[in-house]
């Protein structure tokens, strides 16, 4: 599907530059050091951190916030570490992911992880089998936080609503999100 991108909106970038981690966005001079050292880009050129930053600077929401591309970031922070202008590339991509999540656009597996956290207070709660293995290994019984406490906090931050608000694949199609 050939789509024309939206026109340039330099004000979009203020959504990023006004955050603490995103202040450095404007310093980018597109040298591509980030892409050059990105472990994902080397195998999958659909994920291109330099291009994501460029599109963010130009305010192209459909290629950033609304694109599944940003979810390919493995958050290894190599780009941030190597950037010669101090642009916090990986942190900016996290901000984009946050904006995307607010619109209900995030991968299904993260919704599952989040739901596990909400239910058990842990993403990997102990199963009966593991508890038994721990016993055999003579490991102590660990008392974790009561999940209610976690739920209180996630309710206070609105996280629970965010998790619930994930848009399904059909809904995403309707909003015309760029496909890979």
């Amino acid at each position: 599907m050939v789509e024309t991108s939206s026109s340039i909106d330099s004000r979009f970038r203020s959504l990023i530059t006004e955050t603490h981690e995103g202040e450095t966005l404007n310093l980018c001079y597109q040298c591509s050091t980030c892409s050059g050292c990105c472990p994902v880009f080397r195998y999958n050129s659909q994920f291109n951190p330099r291009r994501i930053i460029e599109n963010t600077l130009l305010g192209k929401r459909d290629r950033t916030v609304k694109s599944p591309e940003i979810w390919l970031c493995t958050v290894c922070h190599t780009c941030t570490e190597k950037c010669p202008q101090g642009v916090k590339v990986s942190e900016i991509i996290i901000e984009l992911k946050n904006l995307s999540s607010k619109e209900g656009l995030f991968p299904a597996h993260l919704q599952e992880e989040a739901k596990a956290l909400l239910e058990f207070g842990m993403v990997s709660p102990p199963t009966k089998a593991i508890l038994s293995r721990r016993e055999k290994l003579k490991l102590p019984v660990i008392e974790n936080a009561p999940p209610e406490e976690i739920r209180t906090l996630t309710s206070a931050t609105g996280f629970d609503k965010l998790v619930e608000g994930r848009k399904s694949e059909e809904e995403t199609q309707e909003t015309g999100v760029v496909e890979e």
Partner: protein
Amino acid sequence: MSCEYALFLGCTIPNRLPHLEVSTRMILKNLDVNVRDLPGFACCPDPVGFSALDRFTWIVLASRNLAVAEEAGLDVLTLCSGCFETLKTADYVLRNENGLKEKVNEALAKVGKEYKGTVEVRHLLQVLYEDVRPEKIESTVEKPLKGIKVAVHYGCHVLRPSEVLQVDDPFNPTSFESIVKATGATPVDYLKKFLCCGVGVRSVDEDTTNRMIEEKLRYVRMSGADLLCVICPFCLIQYDIGQFQINKALGTDYHIPVLYYPHLLALAQGVSADELHFKFQRIKPDAVLEKIEKL
């Protein structure tokens, strides 16, 4: 250096790879590092998935864990790099981002907690290298692993972003090699040593993850190393179970054992392989264990 640490296990080690916990507790004891199991810890939560959904919630939940440790007056020792990045970053941003601490504590107040910012968060690697020191580690070694070639894999979340984590030089670190040398083994160099294990992208693009794992293992094999040594359970899962998976998916034939550092040290401290329960790992380290036996 603290007299006692609050041991932050996270969830992956205790609830998926408890044999890592076994060796860790063993070596900590042998090295006279005191740890306490505090009740009330929850998921860190992980720095890849949760920060992506909502950074603020991620920081709040992390700060909650820090508050638990702070109440007990203990610094935190993490065994997993993911937990380390989460907790250390939360501590760092609360100190450095204007107004964030107040907002976070506003939320924490709802569960009767507060984080004042007095806890130090340290990774096992740091504690072993900076506090215990390689000399002390060496002194507890009964069976030096002479001639065993070890490829070390730092992973990402213990080194970067270096401004926050402050563990070692992000481009030329030496701490992991030092503590490996302390066991008598020889760290070997290999290409793409700092390549990420790819766990963060596994669920979104399995093909890329597989190829990342394959490239790393290819260079480790080329280097002639006997084993790959890691300090993070996710890296272990990627290179252990992941190795098995890529052999199937890509038709490769890798058989490189992957050891979490405490396992390596435990072997050097004379602990028998049986006590270390390698049966829970996919890639059996039989060949290298035999080599070690013969030493």
